[in-house]
């Protein structure tokens, strides 16, 4: 904003914004801090902020007691697997709709989006029964299939909006210079499409990692990713805040990092181009 701002105003904005920012972030900070406390310190009154005996014991306990790494890997496999399969299906579709839009392209895009509006609970019963009958309940493969399908519309939409921004004129120039279709795709289109594909990948890993309806309802233990595994901490079992915090910190850390990198794509990916 070009308006003249006095240093005093700037300092006021800084203080207020940092205050509110830290307040909103506090539950996450508190979880991270608590994960390094003993269970007794975790519930100490008055609460301790930094002056406690830092320990990594909770992390080892969580791993030993419940094979945490197994669930972590389930999350990785389900989030990454569904995103990669989704991309493999979506890239050709988005590519052809962006570069060769036909009369029906808009209808197809809108219809694809409409499948995303279907409330999951509306189809819970049939999916559950189908999964039970074909033996997909509590399997990684079953969850990869469901995650691929529920995020496919978002993947296609995001890719479509990115591909649309690639200047097609550049292809004309390449063709004039005698480039073949193959060369066009490999040397011109692909390098320009990669950033969009990467952003789509990141956002969808985030969405699949945090999905908590299907992962909870379609798994028991073996294929349970972190969302479902953490839900099992909901039953009270005495002193457990520090362990809950350790399990939570490990579950959210990777996504916090990816999320901070892709905050710009978030708007595009979740509003389907309706806000610019």
């Amino acid at each position, binding site marked *: 904003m070009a308006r003249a701002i006095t240093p005093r105003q700037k300092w006021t904005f800084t203080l207020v914004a*940092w205050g509110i920012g830290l307040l909103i972030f506090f*539950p996450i900070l508190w979880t991270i801090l608590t994960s390094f406390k003993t269970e007794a310190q975790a519930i100490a009154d008055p609460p301790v902020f930094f002056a406690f005996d830092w320990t990594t014991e909770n992390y080892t306990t969580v791993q030993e007691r419940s094979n945490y790494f197994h669930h972590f890997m389930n999350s990785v496999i389900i989030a990454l697997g569904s995103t990669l399969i989704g991309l493999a299906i979506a890239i050709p579709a988005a590519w052809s709709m962006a570069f060769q839009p036909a009369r029906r392209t808009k209808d*197809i895009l809108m219809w694809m989006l409409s499948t995303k*509006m279907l409330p999951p609970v509306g189809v819970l019963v049939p999916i559950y029964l189908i999964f039970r009958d074909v033996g997909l309940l509590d399997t990684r493969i079953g969850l990869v299939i469901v995650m691929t399908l529920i995020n496919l519309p978002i993947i296609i939409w995001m890719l479509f909006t990115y591909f649309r921004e690639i200047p097609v004129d550049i292809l004309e120039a390449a063709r004039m210079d005698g480039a073949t279709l193959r060369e066009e795709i490999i040397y011109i289109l692909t390098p320009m499409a990669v950033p969009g594909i990467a952003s789509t990948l990141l956002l969808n890993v985030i969405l699949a990692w945090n999905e908590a309806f299907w992962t909870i309802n379609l798994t028991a233990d073996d294929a349970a990713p972190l969302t479902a595994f953490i839900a099992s901490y*909901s039953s009270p079992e005495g002193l457990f805040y520090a362990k809950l915090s350790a399990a939570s910190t490990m579950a959210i850390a990777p996504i916090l990092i990816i999320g901070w990198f892709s905050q710009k794509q978030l708007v595009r990916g979740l509003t389907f181009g309706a806000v610019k």
Partner: protein
Amino acid sequence: MATQHSRAAARLMISPAVILLLAWMLIPLGLTIYFSVLRYNLLMPGDNPFVGLENYEFFFTDPAFTGAVWNTVMLVVGVLIITVVGGTMLALLLNQPMFGQGIVRILVIAPFFVMPTVSALVWKNMFMNPVNGLFAHLAKGLGFEAFDFLSTVPLLSIILIVSWQWLPFATLILLTAFQSLDSEQLEAAEMDGATGVARFWYIMLPHLARAITVVILIQTIFLLSIFAEILVTTSGGPGTASTNLTYLIYAQSLLQFDVGLGSAGGVFAIILANIVAIFLMRMIGKNLDL
């Protein structure tokens, strides 16, 4: 330059996506509608006779139904009010010049990346727990009685937790909208003597109207399906005090194993979500020029 050949290629490139989504939509949808007219309970083996609209009748007259509708509305509206008002003010603040703007923005959007089960359990135990929670410590420190959030005001507590998760989304989108605001218009208004409130009300808010509508519609779609937060905090209770439609249908289907009843509820949920979706789709469609 669409030749016959390239058109066939285009069709080939789209069809896997179309076929998969078509199957994903039609098969479960068809089965939900089909199950909804059968007397079908997994605990009662035998054939599943056609019963017409009996399940719908049971669903709508279920003692928990009215409460669930009410809770769903309260949850959606409550979270929308908090996130839209809070998000607008936060976006306005983050749009001002300050030191460390990037870091503040990161702090503010972080909750959006926390998985629902983690945020619900962290709030439930470490903040709202009446014995060991931080709020209880705080209340005792100030000489008040500790307050048992999740048993006394379960729905309000869930509204607060979900608002914390969705505030970043609203803020981020409204901030994007603020940044596309023409600053010359604001300067002109300022020179004409418009107060800060007037500038906000007559210039910024109309500019934000579209973004706010999109936030409301998208959030409504997601908020209608809130599930994990309720499951891990209150399991819909005490009683059915925090049961929303999604949780009610889940309980009927997978806890009482009443496939027919759950499916009737599912059909109702689909219709409800579609009413919102129509408006959202219209807005998105208008912005999509092909």
